[in-house]
């Protein structure tokens, strides 16, 4: 800050000696004051220095610089003379600009440059494309990756990473952390050098030598208190000893907030598969190579691999992205587009308001302008003066804008849960910076041109004689313009209101509406059993049995259930099935359903209704007949018009299962439709190594977190539990993106409604003031206060009504965008449209009421005498 202040000082003074003197003086008198103090002082000095000599002395030729400075000085003086108006305008503009600045910052940090890596534009993300490979971050099969790595000549350090639930299994203090298994070049590709120790080399991928880890700075601090001798020590991960070889630099947590990295290695007994796609592949362009080079090379490699391995690679391609583009969540772009559009509407309304206020001022100054024109002032001169005034207004509003933007970003950051942030690259870095300042300033001046140009042109066009003759009353033409501006404000405020309303309603329905189960009073948590300690189904069954036995007796626990993918916990999986007697119509495209493996009391715990047949019982065991429960939607889809109970189906290559019951549909995750066909199997017959535990409690579920954790530690002291939280909290976190979408748009909509109301109020008040005489005459001739009210409020409603009608059209267009952005959560409805048009009209009514009442209470005698 201090350096910036000095830089600014040097810029604003022409004289080096003077700079040295002032810089010295500031340093001497600063004491222990901060950089902000310096900046404040410098701004004051710079202001004086800039205007030095502008108004003084005979002007030697009217140089452009000189006139501009004089104009600027006059403009600032004019602003200072009307502090109230200036403040209103600066606040209005500040809101509009601030909203845009905040969204700009989000786009800048989350989309344009989310990663703090060296030359991020040269880091490539390679995705395998083909049928079913929709998720580009996890699309590459290990065997294909190895071939790409061997064959590429355009990239270096081509490397793959795999999601890793790392269980730190030190006894008594187990912890599950986000990890990544990465191939050798990973850190080099990202340009990361370990702060301590080393990264991975090719030899580390050799199976048997792969039990080494690099840990994050955070983990180093938490587990080793930043002790450098941690390098070379062992830690238990997934029940096996790993040697620590390196510590990552601070804040390095790629991908997905990883805290521990190990080499990606394959047991020679099970060579890397070509038909399973779960790797993320990144690489760095060689010097001189471009994305296009890499892309065309990868296309060739893909074609070659498709020929060599037709079984697995037919019709598979390779898509090449920059890292930022590859990691960008599809929804983010739409989200930012919606926010930017909303922020732009806010700014537009702010501009309209200011243009209106400026028009009013210009009208007041018509006489002055007229006189000046009559005395020989050039029109350009006057035009320039007014424009400069608008620019000065813009300059004054920039600090307000930055303040609003900062406030907005602080709230955004504070409201985001920590375990979501790690999936949003760049979120950590959100905040004001130099680019934000530059953007805001440029936007402010651009805006000034928009709202300043209309009044300026009008003033400069005024005809000399008429303005002087006119008793000061304004021509109707100008009223028309001002009224049109109000209509415009209403027109663009309505779509924003409707869109925000739909977002809020949709999100609320999702969050608080029926889920298909009862999310209240539920505590949830997740576990991932390491292969090492729980190598086979028997061990997993034992763990689950003991877990259920350990949790049930805890006071306050009503019921306990376990499922591989409990709803709203962020996990889901699916299985290809075969239905007895209904062969798939297209053998290449067999039916696929949601895959749930649950313990018998799972349905009771979550209160998922069994609609027909029976639920699972303790009698459904490994050795008894394999059974299944299907969801209502699955029953409808695969046995239309039939009774599925007693029918048979099987998961690909599994035993035949008999359907014994039908369960109600649940919302697994907000972005899935409610009716995902789902197959339930009983845990004992199909054990999994990862699952969620759901506990129904008598009281506040959060209060049972500690006893539940302790009970689980008694089952296995080295088994970590994670994401331990209430189901309500889970739902909140799962839908946080939607809540943000709706919340931000709601705020923007509220601001624009307020601004539009203020705009209408200003115009009504102004017009009524202008019509005081007319109203006086009317009242003298017998009009009652009520008539005057009707006249004026009716006028306002006419404007608002026209705006509402026009806005309805726009709303429908914006709704379509909303529906796309919200995956159908918010669907446009006529009722919502009518409600918000009503809100708009009511606000307009309120805005018009106060000036109208003042007019109605006028004393005709006084009114008539008004000049």
């Amino acid at each position, binding site marked *: 800050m201090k350096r910036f202040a000095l830089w600014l000082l040097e810029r604003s003074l022409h004289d080096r000696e003077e700079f040295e*003197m002032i*810089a010295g003086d500031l340093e*001497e008198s600063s004491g222990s004051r901060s950089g902000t103090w310096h900046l404040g002082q410098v701004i004051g000095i710079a202001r004086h220095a800039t205007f030095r000599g502008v108004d003084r002395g005979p002007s030697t030729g009217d140089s452009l610089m000189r006139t501009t400075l004089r104009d600027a000085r006059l403009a600032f003086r004019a602003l200072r003379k009307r502090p109230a108006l200036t403040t209103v305008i600066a606040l209005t503009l500040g809101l509009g600009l601030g909203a845009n600045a905040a969204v700009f910052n989000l786009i800048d940090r989350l989309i344009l440059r989310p990663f703090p890596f060296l030359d991020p534009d040269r880091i490539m993300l390679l995705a395998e494309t083909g049928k079913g490979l929709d998720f580009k971050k996890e699309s590459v099969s290990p065997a294909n990756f190895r071939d790409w790595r061997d064959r590429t000549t355009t990239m270096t350090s081509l490397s793959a990473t795999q999601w890793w639930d790392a269980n730190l299994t030190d006894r008594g203090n187990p912890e599950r952390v986000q990890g990544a298994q990465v191939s050798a070049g990973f850190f080099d590709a990202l340009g990361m050098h370990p702060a301590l120790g080393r990264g991975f080399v090719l030899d580390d991928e050799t199976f048997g030598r792969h039990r080494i880890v690099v840990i994050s700075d955070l983990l180093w601090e938490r587990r080793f208190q930043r002790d450098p001798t941690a390098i070379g020590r062992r830690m238990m991960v997934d029940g096996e000893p790993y040697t620590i070889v390196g510590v990552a630099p601070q804040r390095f947590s790629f991908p997905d907030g990883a805290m521990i990295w190990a080499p990606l290695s394959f047991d020679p007994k099970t060579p890397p598969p070509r038909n399973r796609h779960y790797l993320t592949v990144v690489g760095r362009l060689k010097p001189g190579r471009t994305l296009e080079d890499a892309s065309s090379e990868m296309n060739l490699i893909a074609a070659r691999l498709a020929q060599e391995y037709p079984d697995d690679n037919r019709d598979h391609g390779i898509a090449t992205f920059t890292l930022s583009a590859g990691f960008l969540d599809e929804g983010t772009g739409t989200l930012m587009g919606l926010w930017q559009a909303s922020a732009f509407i806010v700014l537009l309304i702010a501009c309209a308001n200011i243009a209106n206020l400026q028009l009013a001022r210009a009208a007041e100054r018509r006489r002055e302008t007229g006189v000046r024109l009559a005395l020989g002032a050039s029109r350009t001169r006057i035009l320039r003066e007014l424009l400069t005034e608008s620019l000065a207004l813009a300059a004054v509003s920039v600090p307000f804008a930055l303040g609003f933007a900062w406030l907005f970003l602080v709230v955004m950051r504070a409201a985001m849960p920590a375990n979501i942030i790690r999936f949003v690259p760049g979120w950590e870095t959100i905040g004001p910076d130099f680019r934000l300042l530059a953007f805001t300033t440029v936007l402010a001046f651009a805006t000034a041109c928009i709202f300043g140009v209309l009044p300026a042109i009008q003033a400069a066009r005024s005809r000399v004689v008429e303005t002087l003759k006119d008793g000061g009353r304004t021509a109707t033409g100008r009223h028309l313009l001002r009224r049109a501006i109000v209509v415009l404000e209403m027109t663009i405020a309505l779509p924003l209101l409707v869109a925000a309303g739909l977002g809020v309603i949709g999100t609320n329905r999702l969050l608080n509406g029926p889920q298909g189960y009862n999310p209240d009073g539920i505590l949830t948590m997740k576990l991932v059993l390491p292969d090492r300690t729980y190598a086979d189904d028997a061990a997993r069954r034992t763990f689950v049995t003991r877990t259920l036995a350990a949790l049930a007796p805890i006071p306050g626990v009503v019921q306990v259930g376990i499922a591989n993918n409990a709803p709203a916990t962020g996990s889901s999986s699916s299985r290809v099935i075969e239905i007895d007697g209904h062969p798939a119509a297209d053998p290449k495209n067999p039916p696929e359903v949601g895959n749930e493996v649950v313990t018998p009391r799972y349905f009771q715990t979550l209160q998922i209704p069994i609609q027909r047949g029976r639920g699972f019982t303790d009698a459904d065991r490994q050795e008894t007949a394999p059974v299944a429960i299907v969801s209502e939607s699955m029953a409808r889809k695969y046995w239309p018009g039939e009774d599925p109970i007693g029918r048979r189906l099987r998961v690909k290559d599994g035993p035949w299962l008999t359907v014994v019951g039908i369960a109600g549909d649940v919302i697994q995750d907000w972005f899935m439709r409610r009716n995902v066909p789902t197959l339930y199997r009983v845990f004992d017959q199909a054990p999994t190594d990862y699952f969620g535990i759901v506990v129904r409690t008598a009281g506040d579920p959060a209060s049972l977190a500690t006893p539940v954790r302790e009970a689980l530690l008694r089952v296995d002291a080295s088994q970590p539990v994670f994401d331990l939280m209430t189901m309500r909290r889970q739902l909140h976190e799962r839908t946080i993106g939607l809540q943000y979408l709706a919340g931000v748009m709601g705020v923007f909509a509220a601001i624009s409604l307020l601004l539009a109301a203020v705009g209408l109020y200003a115009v009504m008040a102004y017009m009524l003031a202008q019509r005081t005489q007319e109203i006086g005459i009317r009242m003298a001739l017998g009009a009652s206060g009520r008539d005057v009210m009707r006249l004026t409020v009716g006028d306002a409603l006419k404007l608002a009504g026209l705006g509402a009608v026009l806005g309805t059209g726009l709303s429908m267009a914006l709704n379509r965008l909303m529906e796309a952005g919200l995956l159908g959560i918010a669907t446009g409805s006529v009722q919502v449209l009518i409600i918000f048009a009503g809100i708009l009209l009511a606000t307009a009514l309120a805005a018009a009421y106060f000036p109208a009442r003042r007019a109605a209470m006028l004393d005709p005698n006084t009114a008539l005498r008004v000049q």
Partner: protein
Amino acid sequence: MVDLYLGELEQIVLLAVLRLGDDAYAIPILEQIERQAGRKIARGALYTALARLEQKGCLRSRLGEPLAERGGRARRYFAVTPSAVRALKESRAALMRLWRGLEVLE
């Protein structure tokens, strides 16, 4: 003595410099004005006045030794030129003449 007109702020600055003698650099000048004239003036205004007065030939300046507390920068000491002293006296005399006979106002 019409060729050297001094504004009020300029007179105040010059008087402050005179009072400070050999120790007249910007910081004590500012303090002097605040203390003696009871006026708070903006730092920027003072620098502007100093620059203008030097340009008009009312002030001369010299550099002191570089000082650590100033980040290695030297103080710039100001001194009033004889012509400015004359102009100050002139202004005072003019004011006194105008005041003559108006003592009742006090």
